[in-house]
C-alpha cells in the first residue's frame, strides 16, 4: 500500500502552488491599503488596529506594485484552490482517510500524552508506530485543512461585494466586511506559519525520502 494516495499527492502539490501564488499576490494587494480594521467600515489609518508593513517586490506577485495584476492572479488561483480543497474533503470523507488517519482521539488530548508528543518532537524523534500520524501532526493538518484553508475561502468570499447579496450572513458571521478582511489577513499568515514549520520538519525528518514519497507515493510502513 502506498504511503500517500495519488489524490493526496495531486492535491498536495496543486494546493502548495495555489497557496504560494495566493499568498504572494495577496501581499501585493495588501500593499494597496496597509491598514486593517474591525467592523463594517474602515478607511482612516487612525482607526486601524494594525498598520501592515509594505511588502518588498521579491515577496509579491507581480514582483512590483500592481494591484490589478495581483488581483488577476488572486481571482484566477482562487478557483483551483477552493475547488481542490472541496474535492479533497469529499475524497477524505468517502475514503475514510480523515476518520482513520487524521481524526484525533480522546486519549490523545490528555495533557500527559500531548506533552509526551511535544518532547518526542523536541528530540526530533518522528516515529509514531501504530498510527499514520502522531497527535501534533493530526492537529496541524486538521487545523490547516479544516480551519485555516476553509477560512481563507469563506473570508475571501465575504469581502466580494458581488457575492454579498446572495449570502449576506457570510459577512455578518465574521462581524462585518473589514473584520472579514482582517481575518483573511491573519489566517493567511497562520497558513504561512504552518508552511514554514512544515518545511522545517520535512528538512529535519529526511527531506529526500519525504519529497520522494510525496511524488511517487512511497510505501506504507507495516
Amino acid at each position, binding site marked *: 500500500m502506498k504511503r500517500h494516495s495519488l489524490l493526496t499527492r495531486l492535491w498536495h502539490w496543486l494546493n502548495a502552488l495555489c497557496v504560494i501564488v495566493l499568498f504572494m499576490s495577496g501581499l501585493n494587494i495588501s500593499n494597496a491599503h496597509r491598514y486593517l480594521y474591525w467592523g463594517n467600515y*474602515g478607511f482612516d489609518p487612525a482607526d486601524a488596529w494594525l498598520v501592515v508593513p509594505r511588502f518588498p517586490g521579491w515577496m509579491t506577485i*507581480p514582483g512590483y506594485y500592481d494591484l*490589478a*495584476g495581483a488581483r488577476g492572479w488572486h481571482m484566477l488561483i482562487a478557483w483551483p484552490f477552493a475547488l481542490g480543497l472541496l474535492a479533497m474533503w469529499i475524497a477524505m470523507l468517502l475514503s475514510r482517510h480523515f476518520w482513520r488517519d487524521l481524526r484525533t482521539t480522546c486519549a490523545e488530548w490528555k495533557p500527559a500524552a500531548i506533552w509526551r508528543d511535544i518532547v518526542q518532537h523536541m528530540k526530533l524523534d518522528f516515529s509514531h508506530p501504530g498510527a499514520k500520524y502522531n497527535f501534533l501532526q493530526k492537529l496541524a493538518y486538521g487545523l490547516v485543512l479544516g480551519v485555516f484553508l476553509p477560512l481563507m475561502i469563506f473570508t475571501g468570499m465575504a469581502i466580494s*461585494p*458581488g457575492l454579498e447579496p*446572495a449570502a449576506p450572513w457570510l459577512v455578518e458571521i465574521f462581524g462585518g466586511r473589514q473584520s472579514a*478582511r482582517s481575518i483573511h489577513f491573519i489566517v493567511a499568515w497562520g497558513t504561512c506559519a504552518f508552511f514554514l514549520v512544515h518545511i522545517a520538519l520535512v528538512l529535519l525528518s529526511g527531506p529526500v525520502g519525504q519529497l520522494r514519497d510525496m511524488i511517487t507515493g512511497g510505501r506504507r510502513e507495516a
Partner: protein
Amino acid sequence: MKRRNLIAGMAGLFAAGCSKVADSKAGSALLSAAEDWHRKAHRALANRQALAPEFTRADLSPTFRGNGSLTVDTPFYREQLASGFPDWRLEVTGLVATPLTFSLENIRRLPQRTQITRHDCVEGWSAIGEWTGPQLSLLLDAAGVLPEANFILFRCADTLHGHRYYESIDMVDAYHPQTIVAHMLNGEPLPEKNGAPLRMRVERQLGYKHPKYLTAIEAVATLDGIEGGKGGFWEDQYGYQWYAGM
C-alpha cells in the same frame, strides 16, 4: 543572510515566471476568463434583483472618504460648484428612442430612492454612506433603451492621470433597483470630493465602478472602439477587472 537571499531569489524567479504567464496570450486569456467565472457564479448564486445590504443611520461612517479624482479642474466646474450647478446637464443618449437631457432640478423632481450602503474600494477600505437619487432604470425607461443596447456607459467631467474618466456596466446592473444616480450623500448635496453634483451608485461592485461628476449616460451595443475599449478608465489604463464584484 544567505538563506534569505536564496528564498528571495526563489520567490523572485517564481514571480518572474508568473509575469511571463500573465504576459502570454493564453495566460492573459485565462486571467480574464477567471473574471468571467466569478461574474457568472455571482449572477447564478444571487437573484438579479438581490440587494446589497442596507444599513441604518447608526452604522454610517463618521465621514465618507474621497478617492481618485477629488475635483474637476475646469473654470466651468468651479463656477457651477459655487452657484449650485444651475447649468449642469446630464444627457441620456446612445441607443435610445428619445435622447434626454436632465438638469439637476429635473433629477431632484423624479421619484427618489434613499439607501444606506457600504462602499468598498478596490484598495481594501470601506465607508458607509446614505445616498439619494432616482433609479437609473427610471432614466433609461424614460429615454427608451433600444433592444440592441448591451451596456450602459457613464461619461464624466473629471480627468485622472491625463485621461477622461468613464465607466460601464451591463444591463443586469443597470436595471438593478439599487443602481441610482445619486445627488445627495447623508442628506446633503453631494460633496465635491465625492462627485458633485451627480455620481453613480452600483452597489454590488467595487468603488471604481461608481463614476463621479457624471455628465452623460449612454446606451451602447459594444465597448469596442470606445476610449481604450475595455469599458472604463481603470480598465484601459491599468488593466483593472471590468467586473468588479470581487
